Structure formats: C-alpha cells, structure tokens
C-alpha cells in the first residue's frame, strides 16, 4: 500500500490541536488516551527515515521527565491532606521559607496530583515529538514562505539535526564500545557528547552553506516545481484532533 502523502504542516496543526484539547480537558484518562492514540498513529504512519526513529527517544525522554517530576513533586511542595501512604523525615528549612516542605507525610492525593501534572507535561512533549517524527523536516521547509527565510533556515537546521543526532549517537557509542569503554554512567555520555556536538555543528554548517550557494532566500518569490497541495485527507486529520 502506498502511504498517504500528507501536507507537512498537517501533523503539526494536528499536534497543536491535540495539545490544546489535552490542556483544556485536563483529565488524566483523556490525556493518556491521546498519548496512546498518538503512539499508534506514529508507529503505523512513520517513514523509515532518521526522523521517524526519533519518536522512540521522545518516549524515553518523557518517561524520564515523568519519573523525575513525580519524585520532586512528592518530595517538595505544599502538603495536601488525605490518606497517608507513608511518612518521610522532614528536612528542616530556614524560617523564611514558609509553606515549602521537603519530605514529610506523603498522601495519596499528593502522589496523584504530582502524577497528573507530570502526565500532562509528558503528553504534550510526546504529541509534538510525534509531529516531528511524522514530518520530514525538508518538506516542512519547502512549504514555509520565503519571507521567514532566516527563521526557516534555522528551523530546518534544528529539525534536521535533532533526528540525525540520534543516528550519530548510535554510531559514536558503537565506536566507543570498540575502544573498550563502558557505556554506563555519566562519563560515557560526556564521551559521546563531544564528538557528537562537533559533528552536528559541521553538518549544520554544511547544510547552511549548501542552501546559501544554491540561492536560497535570494529571490523574494519562489516558484514551485511540484506544489504541495492541501488535500481533503489533511483536513480530515486536522479535524480528527
């Protein structure tokens, strides 16, 4: 089956729509449902390209955020009365910080409220991550009007570098494993970060130079070789949000 070719902005508008809906409803069940739906859409529709694989990383990242956010939310904050789950020792704070408490009684209510907020934030990250992994950054650039050239060039560099970072990380970690370095712990990420940063910088500069020397943004008007049309399917996707 040939895959549906949608307008590159479609998924982004869809994502914005979903994000607004999620914030407006503010219901955990609805949010989780949305995240599930988004994941299904991504796994069935994504292309086999570097940006397509970035969704897995988005999922991992948001799971981390959820975890960290929940722990901090439980440890620090205003006590909410309710069913006590367990009690942590209270860390004494200076008297000029009233209302904030570290540790103390952990109630089920406090845990739920921290979780709900975390889920909301993560859902929004996941939704936009999905849009990024469903749309080719290159196609996205082509529909952007020329008068936001400077902006457009930075957007394309940002969006194309991020997914490519993912494939570079895999390659560099592989190489370092061959140098017999352990892949665990903070130090291993520092070792990856430096070659990674260099490579992505060089790559972005190359892309910018290539676009520049091919006259991007010189003429205020641009012709279209094969115009990307807004089709009924696009409206359907946007409406479904």
């Amino acid at each position, binding site marked *: 089956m040939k895959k549906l070719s949608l307008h590159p902005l479609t998924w982004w508008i869809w994502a914005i729509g979903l994000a607004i809906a999620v914030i407006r409803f503010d219901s955990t069940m609805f949010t989780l449902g949305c995240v599930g739906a988004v994941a299904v859409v991504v796994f069935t529709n994504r292309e*086999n*390209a570097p940006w397509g694989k970035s969704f897995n990383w988005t999922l991992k990242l948001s799971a981390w955020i959820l975890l960290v956010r929940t722990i901090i939310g439980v440890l620090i904050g205003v006590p909410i009365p309710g069913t006590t789950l367990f009690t942590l020792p209270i860390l004494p704070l200076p008297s000029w910080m009233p209302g904030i408490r570290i540790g103390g009684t952990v109630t089920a209510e406090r845990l739920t409220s921290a979780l709900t907020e975390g889920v909301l934030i993560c859902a929004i990250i996941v939704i936009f991550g999905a849009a990024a992994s469903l749309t080719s950054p*290159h196609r996205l650039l082509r529909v952007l009007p020329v008068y936001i050239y400077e902006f457009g060039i930075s957007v394309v560099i940002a969006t194309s570098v991020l997914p490519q970072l993912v494939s570079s990380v895999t390659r560099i970690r592989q190489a370092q494993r061959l140098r017999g370095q352990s892949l665990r712990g903070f130090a291993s990420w520092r070792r990856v970060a430096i*070659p990674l940063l260099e490579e992505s910088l060089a790559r972005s*500069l190359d892309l910018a*130079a290539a676009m*520049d020397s*091919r006259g991007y943004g010189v003429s205020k008007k641009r012709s279209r*070789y094969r115009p990307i049309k807004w089709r009924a399917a696009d409206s359907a996707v946007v409406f479904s949000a």
Partner: protein
Amino acid sequence: MIKFSNVSLIYPNSTTTVLEDLNLEIAEGEMVLVIGPTGSGKSSLLRLINGLVPHHTGGILAGDVSVDGHSTQLVKPGGMAHLIGIVGQNPANGFVADTVEEELAFGMETLNLPHDVMRKRVEEVLDLLSLAPLRDRSIATLSGGEQQRVAIGSALVAHPKVLVLDEPTSALDPIAAEEVLSILHRLVHDLSLTVVIAEHKLERVIQFADRIVHINGVGVAQVGTPEEILMHSPIAPPIVHLARALGLKEIGVSVREMRRMTSEIRDKEYVHSDLISSPLGAPIIKMSDLSLAYDGKPALKSVSATISSNEIVAIMGRNGAGKSSLLKSLAGISQLAKGSVNVAGFNPQDLKGKERRSTIGFIPQEPSDLLYGQSVQIECDQADKDNQIPSGTTAQILNQLVPGISGSTHPRDLSEGQRLGLALSIVLSSNPAVLVLDEPTRGLDYQAKKELTKILIEFARATSKCVVLATHDVELVAELATRVMFLADGDIVADGTTLDVLLSSPAFAPQVSKVMAPQPWLKISDVVAAIQAHQ
C-alpha cells in the same frame, strides 16, 4: 571565466596565510585540478570562487575574485547561484529535499524559474546523469555514487557556467568514480562548462585535467599544465612515480601515454620468480556461514573465511556491497542473523573493556568517533591509563606515526591524516591481535597514505597479528595487501592473493599494472626489482 587577482587569504586566530598573492585565470571550458597536501587550503580556494569564503566562514581576504565579471566582494554566494554550481566534500550533508526529483528542482525553485522551464530542465538533467530510474527514490537510500550524481545534477539544473567540486570521488569505488568523472569530462566538452576540482586521488582525475593548481600549504601556489607541475611535484600519481623510477625523460599522465613510452621495457623477457608464498601462520579470524540483514534486506549472505596471522586482507567491492557489515561483524557490533565469528579464540560480541582492546583494534570510517578528549595529550594519557602502560607510551607511538603534533592541540583542529594517526596510536597502544580499518584513506594525501602503509605492514609482521581493511583505494591495496576479498551483494565473489584478484579485473587494476600489462607487476618496486634481476 574565473579570475583571481592578487588573492591572499588568512583565517582569524591563525598565524599562517592560506593563500598568498595568487593570480590565476581560468578560461571558459577549462577543467582545472587543485592539488596539495591535506589542510593546505584546497577547499578554501574552491569556496573562494562563489564567495562562501569569506562570506560564510569568516577570514580576511585581500585582492579580488571575480566570476564572469561579478566580484565576490560585491555579490553574496546566493547571488552567484545561477552562475556557479558547487558540490561539497560530503554531498549527503547538503541535501535539502527528500526525493531525487525534488532535490533537483530545489535550486530552480529558489531562483524562481517558471514551472515549464523547471520540468524541462529536470528531465534534461535526469537523462544527462542517467538518473531517470532513480527519480522517485528517497535520497537517503541511494548509494554514495548515486548521491554524488544527484549532487552534481542539482548543481547543473541552474545551468551554471562554472562547476566546483570538492573531492568528488573520495568516497566512491573505482567504477562509480570513473562514471562521475567521465560525465564531467563530457560536460566540459559538450557544454563548455568550466570545472574546478580538488582531489587527492590523482590517478583518477589526472587524465581529464587541462591545468593544475598546486598549493603547497604555506601560501604559495603554482599553476601549469599537468606535465609541467607533475614533473617536479612531490604529489604525483603512481604512473608519474613509475616514469621517474624508470628514468624516463618525459612523463605521461595517462595510461595510454605511458604504455607507448614503456613498450620496450615491457616487451623484454623476464624471468618470473615463482611467487614464494610465505607459509601461512596460525588462523586468527574464523568466520563461518556469516549472515546479516538490516530491516529484512540481506547485507551478508553466508560468508565463510579464515584469516591467518601476518596477513593483510583488503576487502573490496562496490559501495553497498557489504564491506562495512563484514567489518562490523568481525568487531562484534552487529547482531548476526546466522553463523559465527571467532577472533583469537573469542566471540567478539562478548568482549568487553581491556580484553576487547587487546583483541580487536577498530578504526571506524570517522576516526574522530573514537576521540573525545579536549587535547591530544589528554587522549594519549587516557589510553595509557586504560591499558595500564607506562605514561607517555601512546604519545611516543603517535610521534612515530605522525611526528610534530603539539600535545595541546584540540583533536578537531588536526588534519584528516593526523586525526587518523591519533586514533591509530590509541588503538595500537593496547597492542591488539587484529587491526580492523574501515576506509582509512578517505581524505588522505599520498604522504599520509605512505606512512599508513608502512605502519600497517610493520604491524602485520609481528607474530600472531593480522590486519583487515575495507577500501576503495586500488593503489593502496596494491602497495599493502597480501590478500584481497572481493564482495558483491553480500557474497565473496573472489578471494585470493592481491596479484591474482587485482589483475583479473581491469577496473580494479592499479595504474602500474595497467601500464605494464601483461607483465604481472602491481607496484613500482615490483617493476624495478624485475628490471634489476634482468640486467
């Protein structure tokens, strides 16, 4: 067409000038080759032509560069887009669109050309570069040679008068390189296109060039015909070195010319000492029934081979034939679908830490992947510490390989060859049994290649060591390898001594053997030895 008048260039925070007072005029329809050691400023010279230097990179430019009457001081690179097509060192980094057809159209879209003109030109270029069967393909799935052709095509659609290419064949196998160069040759002759190329592998391009610009790295540039420049230049393709070794008065730049000059030498009767095949040592690497697939596409199809100690095995084959896959499974980073690998008694997938370092040394395609320190000194110290060897050992190895690198230099600021040297000395410091290199000569000049050859031969001579390398560089293989495995579509199609495999296929034969056929000589030292034995 292109005019450099009194051009000097210096980059900020640098004490040496890249170019000094260069005067050069390139006429329409000329094919000019820029040569020089790595880091001598070839890329800078090319990028001066459309103004990417200094508009994009910074740097101080004195003098003037003008193309077809437009000075780059007044016009930005974008304004030159209709005049100059430029193809960078790594075309994959410059692609803007996803499919071949969209990529070709991109340049014309930005120039705001009418729709019917675009349609016509896209078709034209698709035919010219034989890209028509690939038009709907996603660029990411193309092979290196195909990507290079797309990059050239997308520069050509704007109908430029000048085409600038930075190392267009460095990542290509000999056949793909031949294809790209003959297309360029045709464009120069049919359309009177002006072409400027920088390239390290002179043996591939030299016969097409009208003139050569030789940059020596300290700012001075020489301009002349290939014969003039190559007569005395230290940078020269193997056939020129052959002419020098044979003491010929003139040099030829093509195989045809050289064959005419050497017919006398070739036709003598030579006693061919039967190649004494040195007895093979103990087997070190055993691959049996190795299969590998990516996303259902087979990359290796039940490959079996044994590599013994003291062997230097070159793995050759087209782009995408499975060379890198084979190396990766040797190093144990690919999950095998079937079969097994045994390296010095270990399964490479289980190796970790120190044990891994002392068994397999792997140099990836990008040697900088291995480096993460802030300076050369830190990298060397880290290697000493990792391997529990006296401090300074790695630095000493590095000094042997590439002398004169200051310890405080950042690895990023090293030249391609120096970086390879650093990665190599880190890997060698742990004294591995097997050394695996993936495309080590990309971007290396002749001098660096010679050093590399020396190091690898010395390494393989020690007891129970062997070297496996994947490369497109026929000349390197001729100088270095004892055995060649030829891969096609994931299968080993030929496996034998370097002499047998290289001589059996004209496309993969080194220059010396092309000149000297039917005599079975691969390198200059073979020729010289045979002649001396004859006298």
